[in-house]
């Protein structure tokens, strides 16, 4: 058996629907059609009345989920693309994210954001919005990079009593495969050492993990041992694991697919320099997408985002310092 990242997301939802009568799914085309990416394939049939097509009304979609959560349900919302969450933005950041703090009534909603760049998708079907949501208090922002995490973290997201923005990378949907679904997982909020090393730490998450690992492999041929940390969750952020890794390597490169200003990479560096300053043997560096919208054309797209090659180049620079 082999299961893709996308199938894992579908399985997690099936599992949640099966085990928890409070769970329902709401979003555009998620019903009979099974979703734009087929992440809810057959679920409407298997769980009648609990997987429902929504109108093109992102604000009302999220609002409905918050109300249902107040009433004790555990809604899973699918945005057709992360980019469209900007029109449901207010309900996420002001309604869902403030509810518990204001009222002590928790707001267990999961907002699934199919996100990130894919070739040819252009400025409005490629965005990485994890930093936007992480800036607001009251949200948990998850960025699974593996099939196993896609499954276990989505299950965990549904079980969390707080609103979760679940960033699932579209580039990983079909290509990333695992042999089977996991029965155990790291807790939410723990980062993972995806590859061990001692010369430099690359901190990254989601699809960029694979660029980082490829870069590490390339650098291994040059004799460097690169440690790669997969954040898994960008809020909460596991500073301890990062600092411990930097303590071993003395060098830090943060890699993110989002725009540079105030992204995950800036946050990681601000934390490491505050808490683990003495551990660094060289200035911490970051590598992000360029500060423009995500281009449509494959040539431009490939140059807009960090790649194994640009990660390796940045790492080499840093190793030389």
């Amino acid at each position: 058996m082999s299961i893709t990242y996308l199938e894992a997301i579908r399985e997690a939802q099936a599992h949640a629907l099966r085990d928890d009568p409070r769970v329902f799914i709401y979003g555009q085309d998620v019903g009979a059609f099974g979703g734009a990416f087929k992440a809810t394939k057959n679920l409407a049939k298997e769980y009648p009345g609990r997987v429902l097509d929504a109108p093109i009304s992102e604000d009302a979609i999220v609002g409905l989920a918050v109300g249902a959560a107040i009433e004790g349900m555990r809604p899973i919302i699918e945005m057709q693309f992360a980019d469209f969450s900007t029109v449901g933005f207010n309900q996420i950041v002001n309604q869902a994210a403030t509810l518990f703090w204001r009222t002590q009534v928790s707001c267990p909603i999961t907002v699934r954001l199919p996100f990130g760049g894919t070739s040819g998708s252009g400025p409005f079907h490629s965005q990485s919005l994890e930093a936007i949501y992480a800036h607001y208090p009251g949200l948990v922002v998850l960025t699974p990079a593996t099939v196993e995490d896609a499954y276990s973290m989505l299950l965990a997201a549904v079980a969390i009593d707080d609103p979760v923005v679940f960033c699932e990378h579209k580039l990983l949907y079909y290509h990333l495969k695992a042999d089977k679904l996991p029965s155990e997982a790291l807790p939410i909020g723990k980062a993972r050492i995806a590859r061990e090393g001692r010369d430099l730490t690359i901190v990254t998450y989601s699809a960029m993990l694979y660029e980082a690992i490829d870069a590490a492999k390339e650098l291994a041929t040059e004799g460097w041992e690169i440690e790669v940390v997969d954040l898994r969750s960008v809020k909460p952020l596991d500073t301890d694991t990062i600092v411990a890794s930097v303590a071993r390597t003395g060098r830090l490169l943060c890699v993110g697919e989002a725009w540079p200003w105030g992204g995950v990479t800036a946050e990681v560096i601000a934390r490491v320099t505050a808490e683990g300053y003495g551990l660094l043997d060289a200035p911490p560096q970051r590598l992000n997408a360029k500060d423009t919208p995500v281009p449509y054309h494959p040539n431009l797209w490939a140059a807009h985002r960090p790649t194994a090659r640009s990660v390796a180049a940045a790492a080499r620079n840093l190793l030389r310092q």
Partner: protein
Amino acid sequence: MLQTVTGPGPVGQAGALRESHLAAYRFMLRARLLDEKFATLYRAGKIQGGVFLGRGQEALSAATGVSLKKTDVFAPLIRDAAGRMAFGEPILDAVRTYLGSALGPMRGRDGNVHRGRPQQGLLPMISHLGAMISVVNGILFARRLKGIPGSVGAVCLGEGATSTGSFHEALNQAAVEKLPLVLVVANNQYAYSTPNDRQFACADLTDKGVGYGVAAHAVDGTDLSACLEVIGGAVARARAGHGPQLVVASLLRLCGHGEHDDASYIVPKLKNSPLGRDCLKLAEESLQQKQFADAAQFAVWRSEAIREIEEAVAQAQREPAPDPYAEKWEALSTENFNEGQGE
């Protein structure tokens, strides 16, 4: 948090009518007096943040509150002191929130008109206009999924808020799901200073109903009897499964947008029109005419209400303010996900 002010009255339909009128009137009266108290406290510098009054809108608001069951859902807005009390909000919740008592329902985290108790079906508004409607939809939707029948959700709104995308998306959503939503729009002719001709161009806001496939009802918002009848009817229809109901009440706000505002932009023509009549006075006249109550009775109720309000104020003023050192600076209910970074 339930309170009732109606005693056992004469039986039958006439009795029920008398009862609902008297109940609503008493909530109107208390709301008016409570609002006046807040205005006084505001002028004395005793209140932080804005004070928003329902003066002129009490009939509509009270009629909404008394038309609901305590198991229903209610999302009031900034001018709904009357409806809140009618739905069961204790005066003390209002006073504590306005005076910043740590014992209020929002514990100083949110204030004034932003109070509520979601678990009792009373939603605390966020400020973004229109945003509460879909939340009420969600509660009604969830109850349907859970097989809990018969609930209605009422949401109050100003006419200005009908221009928001949230209003549109949520009303359409309620119509598609055929939810028992009652949307009560107080058309008080202005959104802050903005007159209706800069806000919408339809002849009448009830004209919006047909475009959503939603029944729409117009009502004279200064007339308590009319409000009780129309809103009561809308609530009954929603409860009976006829889907969302849109009620549009015409009236005028007889005060500023908030107490900081002198409302000098309200044109005399409107003030002197029937819209500008005081619903509380009209209700008193009508109750006397109907022989439901007399002036002596009004006076008794008034002094009872004043006493209750003064007691609540005195109590809240004795209560501690929130203590920032005791405060948990945590936005998430999952304790270990909260981060203190950056402080």
